[in-house]
């Protein structure tokens, strides 16, 4: 990890949108959640961060967006840089103004507002006159939101997810962090949401860091992937490499070529954990 980061720096320092370097996160001053996580997201890339429940994926995202500070968490070691400038000690609202926007897990739209009010809220950090045009732009990606004039709390799960992504677009971010956009959605909607994420990445050039449980879908649309276990990155590679990796197939995609013996499985886990 460390070597690749250094090598990357020399050849294309300006191409890195987000660089997380060896961060350690502690909750409530005692619980160590992340133990030296490093990752890099190139400009315009769609990078996914995979892992099981409790691996620390959401914590990593919150550390990057600064929202960790609102839940008694703290980055105790390491650095986080956005476009080469350190952001690890900034307040979350300042980080949003720098162009990094997190779509939190579970949508978190404002339920007692209409979809349009939610979208206008997304543009809170802006003061230009193009907000109305951007609302229309969001509606062009999510036409079904336009028909919904009631409170956002009454939208279906999929519509809420679309609204959450639309709200993020309103801030015109350079880098969007998406925390489990597929959570609680039907397979059909998951396909739709992922297709839109990929489209936004290509059309608008928004760099994306996507945290997912649904490894298959995530690897299908991402360029690069990191795999996390127990607060550490254990594997990284291009999406194609990861999809073809036997271990990834076994543990994250389900149904590898043939079942490994129980003995091998244990040693694999031990090796990975105490690496």
């Amino acid at each position: 990890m460390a070597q690749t980061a250094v090598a990357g720096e020399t050849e294309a320092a300006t191409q890195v949108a987000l660089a997380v370097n060896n961060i350690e996160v502690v909750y409530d001053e005692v619980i160590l959640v992340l133990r030296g996580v490093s990752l890099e997201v190139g400009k315009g890339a769609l990078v996914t961060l995979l892992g099981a429940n409790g691996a620390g994926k959401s914590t990593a995202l919150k550390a990057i967006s600064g929202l960790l500070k609102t839940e008694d968490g703290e980055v105790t070691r390491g650095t986080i840089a956005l476009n080469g400038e350190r952001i690890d000690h900034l307040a979350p609202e300042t980080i949003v103004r720098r162009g990094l926007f997190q779509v939190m897990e579970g949508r978190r739209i404002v339920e007692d507002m209409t979809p349009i009010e939610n979208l206008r809220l997304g543009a809170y950090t802006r003061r230009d006159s193009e907000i109305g045009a951007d609302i229309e732009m969001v509606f062009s990606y999510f036409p079904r939101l336009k028909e919904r004039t009631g409170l956002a709390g009454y939208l279906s799960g999929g519509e809420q997810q679309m609204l959450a992504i639309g709200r993020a677009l309103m801030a015109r971010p350079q880098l969007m962090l998406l925390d489990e956009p597929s959570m609680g959605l039907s397979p059909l909607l998951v396909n739709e949401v992922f297709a839109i994420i990929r489209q936004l990445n290509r059309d608008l050039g928004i760099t994306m860091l996507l945290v997912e449980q649904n490894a298959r879908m995530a690897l299908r649309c991402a360029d690069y992937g990191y795999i996390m276990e127990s607060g550490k990155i254990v594997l990284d590679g291009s999406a194609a490499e990861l999809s073809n990796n036997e271990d990834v197939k076994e543990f994250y995609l389900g149904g590898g070529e043939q079942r490994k013996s129980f003995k091998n499985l244990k040693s694999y886990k031990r090796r990975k954990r105490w690496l």
Partner: protein
Amino acid sequence: MNVELLLQLVVNGLILGTLYGVVAMCFTLIYKASQVVNFAQGEFLLIGAWVCWWLLTEFQLPFYAGFLLTLVFMMVFGIVLQVLVLRPMIGEPVISVIMVTIGLSIFFQAIMKWLFGVFTQPFPPIFPIRSVDIFGLNVQPAYLMSMVISLLIMAGFAWFFKYSRLGLAMRATAFNQQVAQSLGISVKQMFAVSWAISAMVSALAGVVFGIVNGVSPALSFFGIKVFPAVILGGLDSIVGAVVGGLIIGVLENLAEYVDGQWLNLGNLYAIAPFYALVLILMIKPYGLFGTEKIERL
């Protein structure tokens, strides 16, 4: 039955009720935005009214100048109060915060008594005539002004929360502070803004009431009267605060009528809102418009 008196009292009740509604809105604003139950709300009226009175009598300022200066002062006052006193209390238990606001209430009452005395002081006359006749009812122009101003404030609040960028941000903060922060809203800034607005609008209500009845320490009684209104409407509903204020205002005056005509207890009007408060808490503790979480269909 004295119909004319009854009608007069109902009109008085509506006029006073809109003023209660305005103060209740200010109270709800602070509660919604920063989860602080502000027992010093009545003192905002008191301070505002005294400051305005002082500017008008001491410096002989024209009313509008003195009034605007008062609003500016109250804005600064609200922000300073929030930043110096309430901000360090963020994250402390609710009861501690309540104690702080009760302390503030006593503190400001004492200071105002020390600075301006305990006697009622009339405002310099602002309207040339003492009363106007509307459909045979006797209405003071100051009362009319009070009603018009109150309604304007309510319309202003409605516009602010529906259409302004800051109003939306405050609603988001009330909904969930973490969500607000993830959208780039500074929650601390929103707290300060809510206190500033609340202090300014309360002071406005204080001045209006002072013009009608003179300024005296009794003005802080508004802060207590607001509780039945707010509880009736639902603690976290701005609309509820207005409706609650109107109902309590009318109820008070009806109690006066019943008392004056039949019971002759002499002070039922002062007590009636609190009987109502107890009743509401027993029957409908979340009030008429209190939060019922939206279930997703």
